[in-house]
């Protein structure tokens, strides 16, 4: 009954259908840029009404307008808007628009079907344009965002090719629930799941009671082709994202892909060729023979002991090598080919693109290959209906070998700490010697073990917009958008039986086959009504709609052991292990929003909200409501320096839904003597589980300075998360390890600032300089259960501890206090602050761009160094001996909790636009323009951190337990040369 009522309410709004009136005169004109070239796609709108149109490729427009005096507003992305007063008798209006290098005047998407001019926006919504994303080639789209968004902490989990990157917006939003922002691509909520490869069957990393997810998985937003993206909007918290409800607590990243434009078809080809290069090493001890015999030899005088010592001496005398350099020193060519066609005629326009990309890893046999094909079609049907269809097919192949923690002596950086530089490892006549110091020879593993992940993905959407009413007083648009994201992920790990470590389990030869299927689908129906009273004192935008989504995922892994050489399938093996995990989530929501724009478009007031029920909640029938409200006010003409000041404040709530299965307390299935054998789950579910609730309040100002040549944005915010989904540690004598429940409170407070300046701006010379700053502090303000640890390998190795009154991301360890060994805070994962600096200098045909990413603070548990120290194999082994003694004998964790501050030179691009006559000669008049570029990514890192890379996470994407460094794939820098031609 309750549902039926809501259905009726939600849809009744769609029935309000006033009559249609006709416009009374026709205004035509042309829009050009300062140089005189026509501007395609500029919007022309009668101020105070919804009447408007766009210019064609000649910059021309024609518009039916009401009689009488009126104003026309001209807008185009990248140009400053212009409002022209038009007398009743004037029917031709031509304008010239100035460049808006700081992009202060864009339209920003704020809801399912609404957008707001940036000048009125009440939230600090970050936008990133296609140009920002693709200046320097990036393995994945999240790489390309690093250092560009104030308030976003974007960190790689390792240096492995093909991604594995975490995006955190405005601090810590949860402890146990979903940690990823919601990614919406053209209205489709896409999956950003990271599905493990099953490498654990080889590495045994999760054996011994430690959490899983150590397979270094790729989070699937990596599949998106950054070159297809027109723009990205980042809603950082609940006050902006409330309309996305219980999926939006981690923020929303709205990706809009490129669309067709009417006019001549433009072809673009961009060819990139480059190379990746190892950028940091651990280094290792310079052994003497005496030391080597001392450490690895046998003190007994038995024949076996003497043979051992003779073997060590032989290997030592054969010479040393830099094993890291030999392993990770590959510089195979990488390439990227990007082609696109964009055009349209009549009511049809299209954007078609293709990508072929290969990033060769610095470890032979590793790499990342991506193929992407996109076709976006926009079709007008009559003059009131527009159909927008997007399709994207992707194939990604990721080859990453073995990295991260293990318990089997197989992961490369787990082997190196115990393998001295003189170890005999190189093959002779195709025979790999056994590593005498560890259980595997990494060169043999590199050359014979394969670990491949193939993802085939389709993302498609259809969006039909029906302009039911469009006249000078009101407009009503109804849009239905539906879409799906379907992918299959296949993981194949083949570890042949002749590998040194394979006989360890008595079953030599292992094949791991992972098969995962994911289907996300969602559908929304939205009505947007705009009303302009005849007084034109204000205007209102009312939107309402319903939305439904479904997510299904099945991830299965089959492991067979004792397989024959050459066997590739999982048909046989004397041991088979089968695992599957499924999840299914359904939700339904309704939402509404009212915006009032008044006082000559200087005041914007917004209220809205979303009600949502979700199958993951204990009660799937219960609706949870997430409201929001905001206001912004513009102060104009404040003087010569300060042109405009906008004050803004926003408040809102959003949720974080429980993870599938949290409401159940179940048995886990096993087998004993070939019969079903049930064990109780160590996690007790909560039948009353409900979404976490985030309340965010943000306020700030946006100033436009120096005639639009500078802008300053400052925002402060507070995010409070109540009803946290916690997995409290149960007394283990209850038979449960943890129990799920809602409770407690977490708070983030932070400040963000962005300053953009154009010190130089002329026809031939432009210099744009930007700086971003953000700082976030979190605190567990209420914890109804005892202090507990969430992540890490136990207190002695450093662990993340949730404790009332402390930072959510504190790292604790054992330390002495007054002579006694106690557990206390030794660090914090969260950085003190982050800054990004970018400069772009355009001189004639040359352009130089550079981006620095500075992270101050943020501690790391450096267990890679601990391993080197334990192996007495650290470059500074004498210091290492002290560290390991402090740890092992005195019980101190401190030596391995290290400051992860860094400054990275993220991007450098030098670009040259070829002169027209040269382009004409080279391409025989076929090309419109061409440019060449030299670019680099992650070229240099300044850091005191002693591990491989301060961007590291052994456990992949984690709410709290990031920054645990265990044997990662090492970092690399990349250099690319590019040639781009437009036809």
């Amino acid at each position, binding site marked *: 009954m309750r549902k039926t009522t809501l259905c009726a309410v939600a849809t009744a709004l769609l029935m309000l259908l006033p009559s249609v009136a006709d416009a009374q005169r026709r205004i035509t004109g042309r829009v050009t840029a300062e140089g005189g070239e026509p501007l395609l796609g500029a919007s022309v709108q009668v101020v105070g009404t919804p009447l408007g149109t766009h210019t064609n490729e000649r910059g021309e427009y024609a518009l039916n307008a009401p009689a009488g005096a009126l104003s026309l507003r001209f807008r185009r992305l990248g140009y400053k808007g212009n409002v022209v007063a038009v007398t009743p008798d004037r029917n031709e209006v031509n304008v010239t628009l100035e460049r808006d290098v700081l992009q202060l005047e864009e339209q920003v998407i704020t809801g399912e079907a609404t957008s707001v001019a940036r000048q009125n926006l009440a939230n600090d919504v970050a936008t990133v344009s296609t140009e920002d994303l693709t200046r320097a080639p990036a393995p994945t789209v999240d790489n390309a965002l690093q250092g560009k968004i104030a308030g976003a902490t974007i960190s790689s989990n390792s240096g492995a090719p093909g991604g594995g990157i975490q995006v955190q917006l405005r601090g810590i939003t949860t402890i146990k629930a979903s940690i990823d922002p919601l990614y919406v691509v053209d209205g489709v909520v896409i999956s950003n799941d990271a599905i493990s490869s099953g490498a654990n069957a080889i590495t045994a990393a999760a054996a011994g009671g430690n959490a899983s997810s150590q397979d270094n998985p790729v989070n699937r937003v990596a599949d998106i082709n950054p070159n297809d993206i027109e723009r990205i909007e980042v809603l950082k918290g609940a006050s902006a994202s409330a309309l996305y409800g219980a999926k939006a607590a981690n923020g929303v990243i709205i990706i809009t892909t490129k669309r067709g434009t009417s006019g001549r078809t433009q072809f673009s080809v961009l060819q990139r060729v480059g190379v990746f290069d190892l950028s940091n090493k651990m280094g290792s001890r310079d052994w003497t023979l005496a030391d080597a015999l001392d450490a690895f030899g046998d003190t007994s005088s038995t024949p076996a002991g003497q043979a051992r010592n003779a073997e060590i001496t032989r290997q030592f005398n054969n010479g040393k090598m830099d094993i890291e350099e030999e392993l990770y020193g590959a510089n195979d060519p990488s390439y990227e080919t990007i082609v696109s066609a964009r055009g349209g005629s009549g009511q049809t326009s299209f954007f078609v693109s293709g990508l072929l990309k290969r990033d060769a890893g610095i470890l032979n046999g590793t790499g990342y290959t991506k193929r992407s094909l996109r076709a976006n079609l926009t079709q007008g049907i009559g003059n009131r209906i527009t159909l927008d269809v997007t399709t994207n097919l992707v194939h990604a192949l990721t080859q990453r070998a073995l990295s991260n923690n293990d318990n089997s002596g197989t992961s490369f950086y787990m082997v190196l700490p115990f393998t001295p530089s003189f170890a005999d490892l190189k093959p002779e006549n195709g025979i790999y010697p056994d590593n005498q110091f560890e259980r595997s020879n990494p060169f043999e593993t590199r050359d014979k073990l394969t670990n491949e992940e193939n993802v085939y993905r389709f993302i498609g959407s259809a969006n039909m917009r029906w302009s039911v009413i469009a006249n000078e007083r009101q407009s009503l648009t109804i849009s239905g958008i539906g879409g799906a994201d379907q992918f299959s992920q296949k993981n194949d790990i083949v570890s042949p039986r002749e590998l040194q470590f394979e006989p360890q389990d008595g079953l030599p030869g292992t094949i791991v086959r992972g098969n995962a299927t994911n289907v996300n689908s969602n559908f929304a129906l939205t009505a947007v009504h705009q009303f302009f009273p005849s007084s034109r004192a204000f205007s209102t935008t009312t939107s309402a709609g319903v939305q439904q989504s479904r997510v299904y995922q099945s991830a299965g892994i089959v492991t067979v052991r004792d397989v024959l050489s050459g066997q590739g399938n999982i048909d046989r093996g004397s041991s088979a292990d089968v695992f599957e995990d499924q999840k299914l989530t359904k939700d339904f929501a309704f939402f509404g929003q009212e915006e009032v724009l008044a006082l000559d478009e200087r005041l914007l007031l917004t209220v809205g909200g979303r009600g949502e029920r979700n199958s993951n909640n204990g009660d799937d029938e219960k609706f949870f409501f997430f409201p929001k409200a905001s206001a912004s006010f513009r102060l104009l003409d404040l003087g010569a320096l300060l042109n405009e000041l906008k004050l803004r404040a926003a408040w809102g709530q959003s949720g974080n839904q429980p993870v599938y299965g949290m409401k159940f307390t179940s*048995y886990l299935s096993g087998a004993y003597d070939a019969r079903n054998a049930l064990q109780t789950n160590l996690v007790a579910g909560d039948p009353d589980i409900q979404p976490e609730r985030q309340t965010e309040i943000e306020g700030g100002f946006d100033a436009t300075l120096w005639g639009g040549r500078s802008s300053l944005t400052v925002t402060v915010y507070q995010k409070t998360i109540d009803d946290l989904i916690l997995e409290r540690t149960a007394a283990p004598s209850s038979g449960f390890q943890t129990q799920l429940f809602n409770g407690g409170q977490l708070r983030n407070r932070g400040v963000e600032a962005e300053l953009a300046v154009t010190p130089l701006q002329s026809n031939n010379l432009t210099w744009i300089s930007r700086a971003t700053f953000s700082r976030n502090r979190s605190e567990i303000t209420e914890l109804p259960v005892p202090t507990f640890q969430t992540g890490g390998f136990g207190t002695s190795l450093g662990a993340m501890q949730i404790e009332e009154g402390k930072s959510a991301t504190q790292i604790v360890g054992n330390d002495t206090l007054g002579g006694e060994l106690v557990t206390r805070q030794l660090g914090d994962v969260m950085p003190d602050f982050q800054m990004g600096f970018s400069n772009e200098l355009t001189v004639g045909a040359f352009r130089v761009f550079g981006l620095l990413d500075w992270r101050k603070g943020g501690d790391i548990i450096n267990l890679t160094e601990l391993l080197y120290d334990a192996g*007495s194999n650290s470059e500074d082994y004498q210091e290492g001996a002290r560290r390991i003694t402090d740890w092992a004998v005195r019980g101190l964790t401190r030596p391995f909790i290290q400051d992860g501050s860094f400054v990275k030179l993220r991007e450098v691009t030098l670009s040259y636009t070829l002169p027209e006559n040269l382009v004409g000669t080279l391409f025989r008049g076929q090309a419109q323009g061409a440019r060449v570029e030299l670019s680099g990514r992650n070229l240099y890192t300044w850091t005191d951190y002693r591990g491989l890379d301060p961007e590291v996470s052994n456990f992949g994407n984690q709410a709290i337990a990031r920054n645990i460094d265990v044997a990662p794939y090492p970092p690399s820098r990349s250099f690319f040369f590019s040639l781009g031609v437009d036809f």
Partner: protein
Amino acid sequence: MMRRSLLVLMLGVSVTTACQDTTVPNLNDPIIDDFVVNPTPAQVQAMAYGLLFGSRADVGPMIRDAEIIGRDAYNLDPADPRWVDQLLGPNLDDADFGANHWLLRYRNIKAANILIESVETSAEFSAEEKAATKGFARTIKGLDLLYLAESRGALGIASDAGRTVDDLAPIICGPAALTRIAAVLDSAYAELQAGGSAFPFVDTPIEGLESFSTPATFARVNRALKAKVENYRGQYASALTALGQSFISTTASLDLGAYFAFSLGAGDIQNPLYQDTASTNFRVHRSVVTQAEAGDRRRTEKIATSRVRTWPSEPNVVSEHVFTVYDGPTAPVPIIQNEELILLRAEARWFGGDKPGAVSDINFIRQAAGGLGPSTVTIASTDAQFIDELLRQKRYSLLWESTAHWVDARRFNRLGTLPRDGATHVVHAAFPIPEDEALARGGTVTCQ
């Protein structure tokens, strides 16, 4: 017309959207609540075999850790220095090692409690079948409590699994814990005796328990465990009674006994104490080899020589010896076997006043170990001399199969005699009560 049809379409779509059913079941696993009342025979079988699965889960790790602390073994796993630094070194973290030896046991005890209560409500089982099932479950519960008592020693254990996360059982001290285990095993014994001729959930004999797959024969395993508990308690008369009701035999194989089975089948696990001798991290402490008597077949059968494995930061932690106790990943691990029962009887007889019987049991074991001659221990020997000999025989008879070497050293106050490889090394007397248990009980735990 078009507008109307579009509107009807949109209205229809939004109504069906809004009114869809959002109920989703657990797609992965059965829910415990479905098993607690009137379980089906198939559910009872899955719960009963689950108890064996659950009790087996920690047996390998527990034996491994006890053998490391007992200086019979090393785990020289370079990936995790804690195997050396914590188990041999001074700081045994209460959040790391040993936490699973507590948690996994109580998880299984809880599962046993669920089965004991739920089978009582079964409509399909007879009173005998219910009693047999309860006797089986309660014996496993006693076994789990015994492993707990062995890992915690004087620190004590929780007397039972908590009924809920908040309703915890008290922590009782070592002696009280043993009394409690004896009582649990006695209740189970009574139930087994009332359990008729067959377990309702057993169709063919259980692997590893082939000789003990009926209530009457499984009761002998129950008595064997009881005898061990009574020896721990110093109740030697009672131990001898229990031994008489067990499967002890000087004519049967010394290997006769109750075992945990392993297999390569899907959903099953492999013997965690087995590693290939060429690459294993599991190493034999050199003292096991150097202290072996000449001609002891146990030394040659259970230990082989492999490549030397060193520990760079600890020069005396080194071993070229590996275990060959298990011949493959499906080799079973004993719960209790005839050889251990004879040694338990030797102890019970010595301290129970039958010294000639004790010496005869010792010599029986020596004879079986490659024909070793009679022990130097006679009825005239001191208790200390007898204990030396008993512990030596137990060390080699139960090597890498039992926690005995460490537990016995603790029982007879001989932890100080175990060899230490480093100046900072200590011999831990017990695994600490897990940090999580202490936190949940307000910080510190003192047994009652």
